[in-house]
């Protein structure tokens, strides 16, 4: 499992599959080594031993339990990363994954409050996707109709989404049996995603991987995917070529929102079972970065999502084994991202 920490093997599809393979691999290795070196300096400044700290961290990621945890963390990240990848192809920056994830979970939980029986789970999944699409739709409607940039509006809507959820769990949806805790009643067993037999991993990961493959196929092999790429490449040219750019942007964003909403509802129905204040723990933002790490290519984005999930899970070791503050893992994640974003791309000279 250590390969997940050192993504050199996945470097080739990410950067340039053709000639510069070795150079790219070299850049990746150099970038990661640089990130880890800086992190080590910080650890030394804090009086921690970087070698044991990092070794403990990597070792902690290899237990069967940790691997299950990584897979479960990765499932919503993969979906939320697809929610960035798909609109990005059309040139849209969906920074609103976080809000769409929350609204997806809210919609799923809402259905869960009123529907029981075998129909509940499918309806929850549909509602989650619709909720996420609606939330993304608000932003893209502003873009298409009055020309407001979607990066700004999706970002703002993240905060509104959080407040919507908090409003619901503090008043109308609060579990009356929950001893005052702000949370919805737990989902019943039939409303939860089943587990893959023999594991603690819920079936959402299958959904996530299928969605990733579907996104890859759509972008690579369909006319719709081609039109998106044309629009993303040059909207003006696309318009002149007769493409209905507004509608394409709308569709791409709605699909993206639906994927993020699905991420929220599988996190709810697979892991959390209740809406509660800290439900998403930055799934949307981390997924945005995963998508960027993979330069908006769907299958590498899956690998990136797994890598960031692994870092998060490995981060537990930073405090359990090394006694460092929990958020230290953010430093490691940020350094790796900066290294990869800044030093592995071909520089577009202007």
């Amino acid at each position, binding site marked *: 499992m250590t390969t997940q920490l050192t993504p050199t093997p996945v470097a080739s599809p990410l950067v340039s599959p053709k000639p510069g393979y070795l150079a790219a691999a070299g850049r990746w290795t150099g970038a990661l080594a640089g990130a880890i070196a800086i992190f080590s300096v910080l650890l030394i400044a804090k009086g921690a031993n970087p070698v044991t700290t990092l070794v403990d961290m990597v070792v902690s990621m290899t237990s069967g339990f940790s691997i299950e945890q990584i897979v479960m963390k990765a499932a919503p990240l993969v979906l939320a990363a697809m929610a960035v990848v798909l609109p990005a192809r059309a040139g849209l920056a969906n920074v609103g994954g976080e809000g769409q994830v929350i609204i997806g979970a809210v919609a799923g939980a809402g259905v869960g409050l009123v529907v029981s029986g075998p129909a509940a789970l499918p309806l929850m999944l549909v509602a989650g996707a619709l909720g996420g699409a609606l939330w993304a739709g608000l932003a893209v409607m502003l873009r298409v109709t009055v020309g407001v940039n979607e990066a700004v509006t999706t970002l703002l809507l993240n905060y509104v989404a959080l407040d919507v959820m908090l409003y619901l769990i503090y*008043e109308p949806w609060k579990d009356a049996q929950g001893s005052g805790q702000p949370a919805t009643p737990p989902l019943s067993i039939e409303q939860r995603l089943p587990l893959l037999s023999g594991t603690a991993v819920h079936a959402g990961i299958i959904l996530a991987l299928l969605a990733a493959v579907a996104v890859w196929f759509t972008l690579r092999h369909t006319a719709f995917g081609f039109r998106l790429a044309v629009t993303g490449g040059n909207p003006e040219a696309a318009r002149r070529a007769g493409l209905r750019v507004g509608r394409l942007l709308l569709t791409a964003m709605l699909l993206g929102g639906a994927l993020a909403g699905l991420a929220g509802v599988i996190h709810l129905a697979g892991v959390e079972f209740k809406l509660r204040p800290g439900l998403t723990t930055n799934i949307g933002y981390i997924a945005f970065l995963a998508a960027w790490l993979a330069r908006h290519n769907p299958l590498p984005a899956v690998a990136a999502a797994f890598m960031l999930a692994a870092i998060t899970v490995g981060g537990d070791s930073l405090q359990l084994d090394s006694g460092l503050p929990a958020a230290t893992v953010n430093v490691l994640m940020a350094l790796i991202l900066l290294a990869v974003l800044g030093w592995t791309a071909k520089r577009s000279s202007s």
Partner: protein
Amino acid sequence: MSDLVVDVLTGAVRGGTAIMFAALGETLAERAGVVNLGTEGSMLVGALAGYAIAAETGSPWAGLAAGAVAGGLLALVHAVMVVWRRSDQFATGLTVMFLGLGLTSLFGAAYVGRAAPGFDPVAVPLLSDVPLLGEILFQHDPVTYLSFLAAPLLWWWLRSTRGGLLLRTAGERADVLHVHGYRPGLIRGAAVVAGGALAGIGGAQLATAYAHAWFEGMTAGRGFIAVSLVIFAAWRPLWVMAGSYLFGAALALAPALQARGISLNQFALDALPFLITLAILAILGRRTLRAAPEELRRVFT
């Protein structure tokens, strides 16, 4: 009723000041053509540095200076990445935010719960006695008075000085600068760093003048508010000032009402600043982007 209005407006100035510094900083960066979502991170490192240095040296002014330096240094990461490495501005900004969050957590633990001298309110002689306005504007801490000057100063600087012209040109027509032998990248980088320094001052104000404490993640999204505010203000410093107070007022309304025994839904209120901004963006529509610096419009498409 009128005292409720006074309380909300006083609270708006109290709570809007840190946001204003950050938003003015973001204005600098964006007028030069760079969006910096890492502003939240710059505010955080500014808050920690401000509080920690005030605790170590006994001087909140030294803390304020340290906050500016720390905020600027974190923004330097963003500047290097986007100006010279040409990495994506949104992704880099978010990453810089996470970096700030992690660094302040790693090095901030020692200052949680530690006492530090801070800025106390100083009533301005005469002015503070003016009915209503005196209380709203002139019974604050010294950093708040600085903020009253900062926005007009920035407005004047951008409009009327050579430096301001260069910065605006870097954001509008970078190639023109090339022709005249300037290096637009350098100007942009400087604008981002200066913007980060302002955000750091905002963070330091939050920690040493408003909350009188350091706590992990204490900026709680105010840096993101600052970024959205700049667009709402159409990149104009004086509008940024007004917008900051609007946000501050929305944040101040809930406690002002609650202290009178009136509860609106807390979360409806919390969402209000964001909804107002969205509504304004929807109403202004394309005009918001038309006001945007040319180079920035490229980022936003």
